[in-house]
């Protein structure tokens, strides 16, 4: 396998695109969950080889977890991704700062080919001189690559073929002292002078374009306006763009359920498949379009270079909470799903900041909460104009930000300072995002979400269905049968816990099952309230009808403004997600952190939900 290594934004991914003819998939390193791209060289370059695009590194002395992954790859520690040949990707317009890494690789005894990207931004003479100087100093082949046209890739592949295959590239490397590094950078500068290559001409143009855009997008006042406009567009597009697709998914499942029911509704397997499994999956998968669109938006902004600017804009307010601009991307991803968001905290170098970010990520309104809010809000605003639930949802999103901010501030005040608190970052040039990369990453993240949620939903839908169907009695009404089922009996024991927040045992079962994954709440309610989707209005509408007619034993309505508001408050704060809990433990290497987080968030959620219900019951 061939590995591409280089600094972040060195044009590694563009080169990877050319090498593989844009046919690749995004994968996770085994046990390291850092995303990277895996593909094969295109057949137009002859015999095909596997290629891997590693996370960007600044030096062979890693300072963040994802840099470590690259070093481990070079050491040959990943048996599944055994690298045999190495391509060092160097940005031709900034190569002095990348010289130390070349020198470190050489010192470690590695043999490699250098791909000089963005070579089209140099003049012919500069390019020739740079290649000559680097080849002479390194003794490695240096191939200029034209990032726009893909020129030079054929030559690069030939040079790679001539490299001898090895298994380890870095075995022993003495840590560089400050002086050693300074010396290396000076060597780089001297070499640059020898190559007579200052960033000029076309490189200058790309830089000027970036500088001009930054004058607008990072402007003290306008920058903020652009930021708010871009974020508003991103979040509102989740709703209006996804709407038709959600309709298709809903209709598809309704059709499937009808089809299954046509085999005879009194048969047990039909009931299991239609009212158990399909109803559960349908009520959750309907939100996949929203999740995909959010991931697409984030990947698009990431690839264009804007997210680094957004991080710069939020750095000041974040610094008051013990965070920095570096936490922006993880927290933003938290609005899609906490699991990849927690992975994204890996490039935060300060231990304290990473701690705070990890703690508040589950408070960001993730997409698994969407099905829950959507259901509860359509109940609250049943039959009213569409903008009302929309506005309420916006308020919930902002509330989650406020609660997250408060939590960060509290944690910031509690835990001691740690070294490394800073905000130092290189801003990439703006560029047109590669649609292929944006699509591949968004699809990969969405797929990972479905894969994680899928088995949980399946197993729980079975458990809930069995619990609510057996033991079979000859009860006349469905609700009476449920009352006598296993789940009904167990539910009565837990009812006292949920009563103070206005929920009976049926909702309690929903809330408990939601600890596996939040969206399971909706699918559980769908089974517990035994929806009969005879109408063609879809699953959600029939569930709403059931909720409207549900009552306490004394006949008072079960779902009212107070109890539904209490549920919303509960979902806003509670950490109900097995995957998040597991990820927190794995990322922090600490059961203590994961358990503390789980207990703290759920306890606060419960207390606030009870207060909300009691207060609203008195007021209304």
């Amino acid at each position, binding site marked *: 396998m061939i590995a591409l290594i280089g600094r972040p934004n060195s044009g590694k991914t563009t080169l990877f695109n050319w090498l593989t003819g844009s046919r690749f998939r995004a994968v996770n390193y085994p046990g390291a969950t850092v995303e990277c791209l895996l593909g094969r060289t295109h057949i137009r370059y002859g015999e095909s080889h596997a290629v891997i695009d590693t996370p960007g590194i*600044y*030096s062979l*002395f890693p*300072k963040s977890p994802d840099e470590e992954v690259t070093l481990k790859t070079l050491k040959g520690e990943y048996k599944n991704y055994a690298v045999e040949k190495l391509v060092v990707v160097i940005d031709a*317009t*900034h190569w*002095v*700062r990348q010289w130390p890494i070349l020198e470190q690789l050489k010192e470690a005894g590695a043999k490699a080919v250098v791909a000089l990207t963005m070579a089209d931004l140099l003049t012919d003479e500069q390019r020739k001189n740079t290649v000559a100087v680097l080849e002479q100093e390194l003794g490695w082949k240096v191939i200029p690559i034209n990032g726009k046209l893909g020129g030079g890739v054929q030559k690069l592949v030939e040079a790679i073929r001539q490299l001898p295959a090895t298994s380890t590239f870095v075995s022993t490397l003495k840590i560089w002292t*400050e002086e050693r*590094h*300074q010396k290396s*950078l*000076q060597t780089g*500068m001297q070499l640059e002078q020898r190559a007579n290559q200052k*960033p000029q001409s076309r*490189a200058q143009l790309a*830089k000027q374009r*970036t*500088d001009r855009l*930054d*004058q607008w997008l*990072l*402007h*003290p*006042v306008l920058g903020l306006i652009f930021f708010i406009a871009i974020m508003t567009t991103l979040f509102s597009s989740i709703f209006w763009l996804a709407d038709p697709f959600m309709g298709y998914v809903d209709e598809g499942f309704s059709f499937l359920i009808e089809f299954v029911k046509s085999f005879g509704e009194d048969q047990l397997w039909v009931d299991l498949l239609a009212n158990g499994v399909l109803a559960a999956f349908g009520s959750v998968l309907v939100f996949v379009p929203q999740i995909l669109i959010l991931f697409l938006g984030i990947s698009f902004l990431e690839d264009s270079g804007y997210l*680094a600017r957004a*991080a*710069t*804009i939020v*750095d*000041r307010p974040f*610094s008051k909470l013990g965070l*920095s*601009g570096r936490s922006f991307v993880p927290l933003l991803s938290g609005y899609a799903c906490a699991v990849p968001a927690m992975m994204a905290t890996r490039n935060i*170098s300060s231990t304290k900041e990473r701690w705070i970010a990890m703690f508040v990520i589950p408070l960001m309104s993730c997409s698994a909460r969407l099905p829950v809010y959507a259901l509860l809000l359509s109940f609250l605003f049943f039959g009213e104009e569409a903008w009302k639930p929309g506005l309420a949802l916006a308020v919930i999103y902002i509330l989650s930000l406020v609660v997250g901010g408060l939590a960060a501030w509290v944690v910031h005040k509690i835990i001691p300072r740690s*070294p*490394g608190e*800073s*905000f*130092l*970052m*290189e*801003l990439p040039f703006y560029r047109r995002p590669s649609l292929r990369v944006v699509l591949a990453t968004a699809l990969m993240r969405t797929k990972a979400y479905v894969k994680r949620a899928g088995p949980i939903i399946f197993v729980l839908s079975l458990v809930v269905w069995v619990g609510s169907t057996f033991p079979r009695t000859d009860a006349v009404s469905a609700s009476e049968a449920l009352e006598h089922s296993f789940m009904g009996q167990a539910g009565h024991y837990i009812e006292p816990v949920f009563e103070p927040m206005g929920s009976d045992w049926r909702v309690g079962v929903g809330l408990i099952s939601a600890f596996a994954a939040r969206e399971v709440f909706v699918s559980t309610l769908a089974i517990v309230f035994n929806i009969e989707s005879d109408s063609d209005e879809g699953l959600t509408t029939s569930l709403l009808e059931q909720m409207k007619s549900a009552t306490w034993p004394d006949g008072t309505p079960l779902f009212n403004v107070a109890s539904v508001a209490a549920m919303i408050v509960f979902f806003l704060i509670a950490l109900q997600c097995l995957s998040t809990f597991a990820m927190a433990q794995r990322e922090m290497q600490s059961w203590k952190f994961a358990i503390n987080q789980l207990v703290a968030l759920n306890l606060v959620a419960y207390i606030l939900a009870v207060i909300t219900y009691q207060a609203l019951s008195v007021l209304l």
Partner: protein
Amino acid sequence: MRLVEVPVNHPVRLVEIEAPLEMAHRLRDLGFLKGIEISIKIKSPFSGPYVLDVAGASVVMRKNEAELIVVEEVP
């Protein structure tokens, strides 16, 4: 003179970094090297971060980090 005192769009030359080792390393990785030319492109409002031009690359840093960087006028 410290980098914080330098006005926007006024090129200066880096003399020394008086930062803790860890931060000094990060700065070095980003190209902060004795003798290199730096200019401040944007100062964010409310003492927010600075956007710098470091030998042709854009780098963001906080105000308190800019206090650790000693610079001199370009002769």
